[in-house]
């Protein structure tokens, strides 16, 4: 929201410029908020899959969208904003020391699943066991493989993933195939 100018002292031309500028900012804000609504969840999912807590994830998401606002305000390129958002998310997540937190979360998460009561306890238990096994496999993957997987799950193409993570196309493709092979093996058991 931008504040109106007093205007009394301003020349009409200046006032018109100010009004245009205000409109532009309002439109930009609306655009950024719409993108926030569209991408908060995917970004949070990605950040949490690479080990950030929800609290840290929310903070990073705020930073991302403020950066987006400034990026667009400076008239920077707006093609492939999805790739841009994930790239910034990746860089900001790197800055956080999350390894220990990830491990804590993983343990807490596994516990949550184990005690989660369901409408049909037996089915629930069985599906929980599979879930737990899958979760364990995914969490045992190297961080880079996990990142590739969750970016792909959020709909990014190989080229976009490669750009976000600074990898070659071949590395992305191999990483995904390797991870899915492990998941497939875990599901078989």
């Amino acid at each position, binding site marked *: 929201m931008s504040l109106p100018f007093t205007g009394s002292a301003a020349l009409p031309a200046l006032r018109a410029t100010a009004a245009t500028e205000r409109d532009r900012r309002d439109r930009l804000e609306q655009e950024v908020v719409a993108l926030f609504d569209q991408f908060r969840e995917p970004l949070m999912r990605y950040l949490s899959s690479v080990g950030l807590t929800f609290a840290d994830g929310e903070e990073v998401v705020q930073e991302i969208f403020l950066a987006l606002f400034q990026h667009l305000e400076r008239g920077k390129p707006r093609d492939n904003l999805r790739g841009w958002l994930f790239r910034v998310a990746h860089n900001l997540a790197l800055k956080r020391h999350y390894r220990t937190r990830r491990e804590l979360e993983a343990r807490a998460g596994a516990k949550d699943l184990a005690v989660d009561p369901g409408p049909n306890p037996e089915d629930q238990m069985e599906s929980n066991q599979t879930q737990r096994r899958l979760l364990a496999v995914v969490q045992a993957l190297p961080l880079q493989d996990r990142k590739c997987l969750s970016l792909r799950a959020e709909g990014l*193409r190989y080229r976009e993933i490669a750009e976000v993570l600074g990898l070659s196309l071949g590395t992305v493709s191999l990483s995904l195939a390797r991870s899915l092979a492990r998941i497939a093996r875990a599901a078989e058991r």
Partner: protein
Amino acid sequence: MQHEDFHLSDQQILQDIDGELSTHEEKLVRAHLGECWKCRARRQELESAIGDFVRMHQQEFDAKLPPAAGPRALLKAQIAGLAATPNRNARRFAPPRRVAWELAAAICGVLVIGVFLALSGIGRQSQPHAHAVVISIPDSTLTPGATLLVSRRAVCSQENTKNKPVPTLVQRKVFEEYGIARADPRAYEVDYLITPALGGADDIHNLWPHSNSAAVWNAPVKDALEDRLREMVCDGTLDLTEAQREIANNWIAAYKKYFHTDKPLAER
């Protein structure tokens, strides 16, 4: 690929599933899949691994994700904060970290008291003030007060009620708005009108320069009022929004009212 001992790699199968093959490669891979059950079965296994992963990826997450309303409101407030900061490259207002993020989920919007004042045409243009002016009550057009919509419980469960320092750039902006840009910064303390301990926001509309030289109604007196109001809010004798309103309207009047006195009580 026509040779019967030849099988596709996981990578090739996955690239096909993901539509990442060139037209030529795709043709070869499809031809092989057409004739090789083994590779087709492998394709299915990888497809179902994708399904498993996506389900887990979402289930693990969806039930736990806090609603978007609070973070959205915070984002809007921060964008507005950017607009109010003269230097776009300046450090933005950090989200109020003392209000735990778990509690931020309870935030369902950001209320800027006095938005109407602002919208009705009173801008934040500098107004001329004498340089050595003593300010013991904020200008309500410049500092109407701004709050986060936090619950009483959130406010009262904050352990650390010490205000964090206001960034120098923001302080300078406040000074400019009050027309005291060239005054000695040590003569003033940039203070929150509605203290964050009572749900006040990190927002320039909630900041004002309180003169250190104010002989009677000075910062320690206001701190005492804040402590008093917070106690009353937390023991349930005063409504949080009422406390915020009173302190934003006229903190000196609020002091007189809640301490039943016309002048500040002796230092506590």
